[in-house]
């Protein structure tokens, strides 16, 4: 039997990797993938908690998370396409017209 701690640990590791990805990567699509990784990491925790407590609310929340992730994916892809068409780059470090 794998303990709750291990699930939470894996989830935490994935989450931190996702956060670091957002901090470091420059390609908008990759940054976006890292955000999705964060959401998935949280899902692992949610399911683990839910299973260990025998309560379904956590699992239901996972559905909503997936749903939201998908919606964000749609909007996100559209925005990335638009930014690429406007700037001919998806490198977020070069997209800095707005500052100060």
């Amino acid at each position, binding site marked *: 039997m794998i303990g709750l701690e291990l699930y939470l640990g894996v989830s935490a590791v994935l989450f931190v990797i996702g956060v670091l990805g*957002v*901090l470091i990567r420059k390609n908008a699509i990759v940054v976006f993938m890292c955000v999705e990784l964060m959401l998935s990491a949280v899902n692992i925790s949610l399911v683990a908690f839910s299973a260990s407590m025998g309560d379904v609310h956590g699992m239901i929340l996972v559905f909503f998370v997936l749903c939201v992730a998908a919606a964000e994916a749609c909007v996100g892809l559209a925005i990335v396409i638009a930014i690429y068409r406007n700037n001919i780059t998806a490198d*977020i*470090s070069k*997209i*800095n017209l707005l500052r*100060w």
Partner: protein
Amino acid sequence: MAEFVWLIVVIPLIGFLINGLLGLSSEGYRKQKSVIGWLATFAVFVPFLIAFQIFLEMNAGSEPVVVRLFTWIEAGSFTSDIAYRVDQLSILMALVVTGVGTLIHIYSMGYMKTDEGFYKFFAYLNLFIFAMLNLVMANNLLLLFLGWEGVGVCSYLLIGFWYKDMEKATAANKAFIYNRVGDFAFLVAMFLVFRTVGSLDFDVIFSNLHLFNGDIAFWVAVLMFIGATGKSAQIPLFVWLPDAMAGPTPVSALIHAATMVTSGIYLITRFSGLYMTSPEAMLLVAVIGGLTAIVAATIALTQYDIKKVLAYSTVSQLGFMFLALGSGGFVAAMFHVVTHAFFKACLFLGSGSVIHAMHHVEHELEHEGKHVHFDPQDMRNMGGLKEYMPSTYKTFLISTFAIAGIPVFSGFFSKDEILAYLFNAGLGEFGAVYYALWGLAVLTAFLTAFYMFRLTLTTFHGTFKLPGKFKGAENAAKYLHESPASMTAPLWILAALALVGGFMGVPEFFVTTFTSTDATVNWLYAWLSGVTVRAAIILPYGVKWTLVAIAIVVAVGATILAYRMYDNDKGEATDAAIRERFGSLYATWEDKYKFDEAYEAMIIRPGNRLADRVLAVFDVKILDGFVNAIGSIVQFFGSLLRFVQTGVINTYAIAFVVGVILIIGLLIF
């Protein structure tokens, strides 16, 4: 009648709305200048009549009447009403505000006759009266603060009335910003009062004064005083008032001499009970007042702009009032507020009349085809005006006698009482300081009489100097003429009041010494005794009479000295001689003690320089000279923070994660 007190406040507001809205919307209405003017005047005169009626129905022993209109803010335990308070103090202030206000409205009809923004001017004036009445009639601190901010906004609008003139717009901003510094202190004082008493209503505060233990009383008193230094132009926040003379002269007379600037004195008098519990705060008030009085008086000595002299004289007289407050003479301060309103308004309006005439001369010369450009406010261009403007001269002279403290004129009584209180305070705690302040005050009184006669004599006596000074102005004298009746009538009324106004507060010992029975000739003292606390005068008769004698000698001496030095066109020669004699001291006075420069050097410029240097890196254009004391410091840090805002998402995410660590750190550990 007291229940109709709300009408006093509301009628000026209605006047403002009618003139403002009709003027904004209808081109035709703007041309109906007499309609606009009289409407605005009646919007102040009717409240005066109501206030007078209420005044007649009251006596010295009347209980305060509070008229609650509706609840303004209500949240849980905190409520604040729109409520007006009718008591001896508020009705006195209301009478001064509406009375002097009415006269100045009448005067303005003549003075502003040819101005494009006629309707706007009168709408603003009405709005100012409305705000000022809220200030003096309010029954709680929040409503008082509303009026306090309101008069600030109106003064901002009126100083910058001729907005096309950049200098005037800057002066308006300066006034507003220096006032905000004071307002901030006032607001904090208000919060402290609320925290201590749990209410902002005057009734509740005054009946719970015992809750203010030592430290809180001191801090509330000091913070309120800082608020007062902003509004009433005391050191260190006084620099805005002389610049505020950029506004039209009636505005200077109404706002910057008679009413708004005295609101600080009103506030402290209102809270006299609180101040009496904190001798340290009283001492601070007195010291600041004394320093301001002498500093402003010496600056006034060196000025040539007729309005600037009056402005510094106002600052100096306000200092006198704070001296009175600081030594426990709250009634004496109010007395001086009232008499000062009479003679200073008269002086300002008289100077306005002179400037009006000088402008007319310039205009007519222009008409003749001679382009002579001179400063119509510079008294070195004047002289000998008494023959051309007899009414203006006579009223100006009466008011000068009053401000100089020549016996029987109103200023004599009020100034004498202030000196008596100062000397009296010397017997109590911090006695030595008060004696020193008394000496300073006597010196200031001497200077006051001196520079005021310097002004009057240079302007009205001798010969008209303009023809000799400017080419093409040889026949300028024939265009000099007296101002219209709408301008001279208010002058005469104010001069009459300046002449007899002092008799409302004849010191009792004038009578008791001779009759050796109790007498109540000091009407003002009796009238205000119920609403203010005041220190008791414990000086023996001999000392009192000696003080009176000193005051008379000083005033008369200064007058005679000034007459000998400045009559018969000796003005400029004398000034040169004085400059010679006092050397660098005189230069300091002339530079206004370099207050403006100090603010500039210590706060504004370093801020600018640093901001410039930082911003130059990014080639960002810095604000165009429009900077102020608080602004620049904060601006500097602001521009530093721009480094962080790089525009790159990764940076933002890093800041986010730093924030997360901060929050987790704060909450878990």
